[in-house]
């Protein structure tokens, strides 16, 4: 293996931060190559010395300073788990809010209109007109092309007819 490649790996080799096969390759090269071995030794020395110096120049807390720092931290309000606490609790909060909102929308726009149409005159009139048109258009088609469902409300006698095409899509013609 070429020296250039080996030297590229040397900085990581000193901390054994290379893959196993690279470590093996470097080791077997160093045995044969004095130049790379010297380079490697220089890396080892610089790293060892720097670590030593870091150790010797360690800063320390004075006990009073440390206690004060801890006191300053715990002086804030308790890290209690409240419904308004940040993640993951707001997430749960947000999800339940979204759920309620979705249910409300579903009720307003999907479920409610059928009930409304029963009671409100102009709307049911419009509905009836649409039904008649749909019925007419359905008869013009071949019978296999459409499916018809009829519901009669016992209280009012009002009929509700659904007409679907062969793909089960509700067909509305204007």
């Amino acid at each position, binding site marked *: 293996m070429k020296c250039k490649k080996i030297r590229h790996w040397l900085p990581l080799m000193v901390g054994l931060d290379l893959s196993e096969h690279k470590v093996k390759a470097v080791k077997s090269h160093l045995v044969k190559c004095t130049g790379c071995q010297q380079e490697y030794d220089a890396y080892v020395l610089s790293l060892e010395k720097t670590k030593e110096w870091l150790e010797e120049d360690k800063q320390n*807390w004075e006990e009073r300073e440390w206690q004060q720092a801890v006191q300053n931290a715990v002086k804030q309000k308790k*890290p*209690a788990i409240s419904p308004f606490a940040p993640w993951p609790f707001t997430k749960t909060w947000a999800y339940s809010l979204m759920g309620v909102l979705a249910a409300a929308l579903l009720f307003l726009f999907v479920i409610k209109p059928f009930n409304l149409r029963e009671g409100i005159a102009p709307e049911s009139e419009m509905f009836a007109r649409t039904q008649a048109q749909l019925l007419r258009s359905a008869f013009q088609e071949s019978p296999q092309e459409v499916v018809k469902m009829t519901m009669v409300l016992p209280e009012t006698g009002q009929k509700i007819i659904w007409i679907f095409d062969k793909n089960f899509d509700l067909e509305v013609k204007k």
Partner: protein
Amino acid sequence: MWMKNDDELVSEVLKGDQTSFELLLRPYRLGLLNMAYRMTGNREEAKEICQDALIKVYRYLHRYEKGKSFKSWVYKITMNSAYDFLRKKKKSEDIIESQKDLHFATSPNPEQQFLNREIGSKIESCLRNLSPKEKAVFLLRDGDGFSVEETSEILKCSSLSVRTHLSRARKKIRAQFDKVNLGFKKEVNSEV
């Protein structure tokens, strides 16, 4: 004495026991202070960073996922505080100017002061050319002995990025080392 592990202490703190907070952080206090100190080069600033980190650790303790390394989590928060601090500092003043009067304010006796200054300035010289990321990677991996994977977790980057920065850092340190080491030997001889 029965020693509680980190996760147990976290539970105690979350239940409202403030004294457990000190016990929880005590083992890491020197590591955190020195990490911050190396990032800024100033002891008072390092304390400021640690104070900010402690406040965040306490405030967001419920976010810590039990079973994971609490040490890594605390280092991550402290590293964020250090980066925030450096960013703010860079805006307000020239970093290099402020690093001139590092280390020396706190040593009580002159002899110790001289030794500290020497060692301190040697490390400063070795780390001088490192970018903040290279410095952080080097300090976590070689200073505190975190693995490459743990370092990538703390710094929120890939292992590949850690290896790249680590390699660069060690190269720069090795290049500075000979100069610094040689200069120091000369200086000591002339003092004697």
